[in-house]
């Protein structure tokens, strides 16, 4: 019994020191100069624009990865595609790549001296230091989540019902919408939640390709960094609190969905 208590205390102490107390501190520090200063900081035009841009990028990247994720999972589980094994390994690659490397990779493709740089310049299309580059970076880093949630689900439910639907004359499209999608919908939703959290929180990759123009190409995570560098700690803490609240909303949805799946 004493041993058990000691283990509990040790686990709690570790969690408090590494996780709970630091996160609690940003909430506390946000109000160092009072609630009015905090409100002013969060309603700055640059802060609001950063929040809007963050949501916009997520609104583009998340649907792309959701469609890709479901399609890719179907391909990996349901078809005998010859390169399925290769794709299976490649899908996880974004988890193994440092965000900064992702940013560099995009610069080397779409930057002024990149592979497609001259062509893009000739057609007056900006990718790096503009929205398209930031979207590409976000799609890259949040790519695996939907695939990884849906693949095990598809394996588990099997394809008996899909085959029954097909034997009864349903088109592949009908069988997907009426049979497959309803049985994987919570898995897809869980994947979408994780993708959204990652998209909103991405910093390193976006930082390389964004160019840091306040009020133009600054997402909320970049805004936090910018305020910190400018010694505006209240601004940094308040923006962080907004991001932390979004993270807590993510955790809440994850828990609700996990219960639904079980």
């Amino acid at each position: 019994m004493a041993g058990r208590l000691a283990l509990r205390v040790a686990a709690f102490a570790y969690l408090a020191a590494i996780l709970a107390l630091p996160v609690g501190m940003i909430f506390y520090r946000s109000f160092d100069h009072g609630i009015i200063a905090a409100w002013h900081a969060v309603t700055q035009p640059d802060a609001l624009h950063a929040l809007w841009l963050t949501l916009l990028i997520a609104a583009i990247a998340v649907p792309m990865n959701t469609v890709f994720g479901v399609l890719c999972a179907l391909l990996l589980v349901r078809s005998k595609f010859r390169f399925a094994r290769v794709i299976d390994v490649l899908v996880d690659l974004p988890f193994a790549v440092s965000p900064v490397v992702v940013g560099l990779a995009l610069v080397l493709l779409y930057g002024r001296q990149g592979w497609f740089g001259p062509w893009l310049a000739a057609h007056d299309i900006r990718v790096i230091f503009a929205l398209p580059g930031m979207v590409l970076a976000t799609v890259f880093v949040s790519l695996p989540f939907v695939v990884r949630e849906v693949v095990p689900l598809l394996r588990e439910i099997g394809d008996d019902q899909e085959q029954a639907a097909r034997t009864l004359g349903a088109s592949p499209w009908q069988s997907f919408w009426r049979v497959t999608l309803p049985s994987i919908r919570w898995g897809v939703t869980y994947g979408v939640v994780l993708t959204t959290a990652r998209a909103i929180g991405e910093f390193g990759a976006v930082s390389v390709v964004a160019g840091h123009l306040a009020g133009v190409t600054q997402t909320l995570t970049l805004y936090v960094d910018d305020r910190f560098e400018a010694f505006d700690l209240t601004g940094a803490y308040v923006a962080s609190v907004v991001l932390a609240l979004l993270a807590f909303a993510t955790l809440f949805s994850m828990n609700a969905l996990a219960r639904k799946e079980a």
Partner: protein
Amino acid sequence: MATSAAIIQRERVQVKKNFIRGDSLLPAGIVTTFLSVIVLLPLAAVAARAFTGGTFWTEAFASDALASLRLSLVASICVALVNAVAGTLIAWVLVRDDFWGKPLVNALIDLPFALPTIVAGLTLVALYGPNSPVHIDVAYTQAAVYLALLFVTLPFVVRSVQPVLMELDREMEEAAASLGAGILQTYRRIIFPTILPALISGVALGFARSIGEFGSVVLISGNIPFKTEVASVHVFGQIESGDIAGAATVSVILLALSSAVLLALNALQRRGLRHGG
């Protein structure tokens, strides 16, 4: 009866064949194209840049690049080891112990996955930086790097070991205890071998994450070359200063390290699936 069953069976096989041949061509094309454009092509550009110009080895052995890679590697290994112990401990307490507010603590474990890395870094500055309310200031030291990596990799081992512990048969432990095994002996002989595959997986995923970590480290480590500059921060600095060849070189080494670990893990899991059933 038998013949109609055979006909149905044949039709099912036919349907399945059609499904595979005709219908998966378009999805296969879309998936392959998307993956190539979004992931493969950019990474190919990095590799190509690193190996053109014949500067790979001089760049790789530049003293500042080497120092940053060494710090990332050593810190990632140490953090992986700490996670192995702390993660198992936390998973154990979450599975076997009972206390008020357990669902809340359990949900909190995933916070580092949900929280943006730059926010993680800022939380550490708030508690362990200058003006620390607990009078511990690790800013601009290597301890800050370790702390940031421990924060972002916390969930990996817990979340991989926890489900295995849940399914662990308690009777085996009780049998061992009744035969006179101490707590440590029970752990070493019964629990540890069972959770080992999950533990390895969690540790490897955490390592792959640590080796390229950027956002959580950048604010609190101070990014002092040769002292607290990790590899990804070094790459960032090289991009900013226009040394793209150097940045690509260190990037390729980082890529090689983390994908080697993940590939090894993948192979290990496949072998485990085959042998373990």
